[in-house]
């Protein structure tokens, strides 16, 4: 299956993810709630999917699908959709406002959004259904989705995991944004049996690999080099709040927005990262 192998420019990706993080930071100044830590955690993953893997229907060709199963990470999806022109700047600036169309979770019907998510553990089954529909129509569409650690605690996710491989779904590529953080602490401490993840997926009949979830080239290569005869789960080891020193691995940044001083400091850190 064509996934754009060897076409990935890691230097360009570095510039893009820095730009997206700045844009998310900018929007953060308008609202109280943002899930900024969650978006920064999966920034590289979603960027690679949109800008390195997906086919966007160029010249009438295949249009792959992205479904943000961990809906609370949607700010990075919005930032990418804005840059791609799917969302307007005005729509982005209207995020979480009474007259805006974008909320804290992706809503079905909004430009570029394939499904409404937010409640955890729904995305993978919908992605399996989408993949089956595309297969039924003899199309080579690939469905991409990103899950959170918490979603892998939902029984529904494991149902869908069983379905994907049992039904021979090959056109499904999933990522878990494995930042090891949840509301009440580190997953490795609250639920040590959560690990290992890769072995669980292998046992369920998937192809599965672990990568550094902030290494764009590694993420890309993990997908581009897949065998393609099974669904793929990429376990991306990530850092919640990645890129801003005071946000990294600090659970409060799951939800709150930076104040003015924190904003300035974050901006400086992002500038310095280039």
């Amino acid at each position, binding site marked *: 299956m064509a996934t754009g192998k060897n076409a990935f420019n890691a230097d360009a990706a570095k510039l893009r993810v820095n730009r997206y993080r700045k844009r998310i930071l900018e929007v953060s100044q308008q609202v109280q709630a943002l899930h900024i830590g969650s978006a920064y955690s999966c920034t590289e993953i979603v960027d690679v999917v949109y800008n390195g893997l997906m086919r966007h229907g160029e010249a009438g060709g295949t249009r792959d699908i992205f479904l943000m199963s961990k809906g609370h990470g949607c700010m990075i999806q919005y930032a990418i959709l804005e840059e791609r022109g799917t969302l307007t700047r005005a729509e982005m600036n209207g995020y979480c406002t009474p007259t805006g169309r974008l909320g804290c979770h992706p809503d079905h019907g909004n430009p570029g959004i394939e499904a409404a998510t937010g409640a955890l553990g729904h995305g993978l089954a919908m992605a*399996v259904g*989408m993949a*089956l529909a595309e297969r039924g129509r003899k199309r080579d569409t690939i469905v991409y989705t990103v899950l959170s650690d918490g979603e892998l605690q939902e029984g529904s996710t494991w149902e869908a995991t069983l379905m994907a491989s049992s039904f021979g779904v090959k056109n499904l590529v999933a990522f878990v944004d494995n930042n090891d953080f949840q509301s009440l602490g580190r997953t490795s401490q609250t639920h040590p049996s959560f690990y290992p993840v890769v072995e669980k997926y292998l046992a369920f009949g998937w192809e599965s690999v672990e990568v550094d979830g902030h290494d764009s080239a590694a993420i890309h290569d993990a997908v581009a080099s897949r065998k393609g005869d099974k669904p793929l789960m990429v376990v991306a080891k990530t850092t919640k709040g990645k890129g801003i020193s005071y946000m990294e691995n600090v659970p409060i940044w799951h939800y709150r927005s930076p104040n003015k001083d924190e904003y300035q400091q974050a901006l400086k850190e992002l500038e310095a990262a280039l």
Partner: protein
Amino acid sequence: MRNTFSEALYDEAKKNPDIYIVVADISPGGTIAKFSTEYPERFINVGVAEQSMIGIAAGLALRGCQPFAYTIATFSLYRPFEMVRDDLCYQNLPVTVVGMGSGVIYSTLGGTHHTQEDIAVAGAIPNMQIIAPCDPAECTEATRHCATQKVGPIYLRIGKTGEPNLTKDAEPWQFGKLRYLRRGSDVCILSYGVIMKMATQIADSLAVGGKSVSLVSCHTLKPLDREGIAQALRTHKQVIVIEEHAPQGGLAPQTKQIAWDIKATCRLDTFTLQDKFIHNYGSHDDLLAAHGLSPQRILVAIA
């Protein structure tokens, strides 16, 4: 009724390659074997995994398909409730959730297999539509409607097996409209679903006693034909609601509400399941009787 559903679905699937059925280790039987043989890609058995059944159906619909999700009523709606609410209703997808063996049809299997409150549960969700056919022929009409509509999700509440056809002389079936199986002027019986058989017996008894009786299938519970019910309340001296559902959230309280709204002057009696789990392991009729739903009791109460 489930076999009739299978036949109707198979006929629709022959015409429309976008029709899928996702089942959870429960097959409608009958003609569905032809469906699964001829269209294996469109017959999906998730096993005992109802959350996936609804999620996968949603994913199919998001790509333009027309899926049916099918299992025993309680497992079609209660087990995957959040998927029904979020994946289907919030996204307003044209997925039909088929609840088979609804009400207390699975009498000997106990309360875990009963859906006494499904109309209330499904009806409370925005965008959800509800159809409960009263006999196999009406089930065919309802299934055809579900297979061709694109408005949004439908909860199709059906029986199981052995139901008689009661609608041979009825007016044409129309989604969202009351359907008179017979028209009279004294008493009007409003009912839906499998218990229509009992409603028919009561109507017959009243007719023998000299009453002019209307018998109405309120097959579409949502959107409810409020104007049709208002008209029935205005044009009959006595209206009787008989339903195999809890006292809350079904046809009975909605009819009372309409009666209040229009200041109806007719006599209005309602007969429902009780608001309790009854541990009776007899026949379907035995369990209905234990809930107070029997022709004898109702005839005495409405006299």
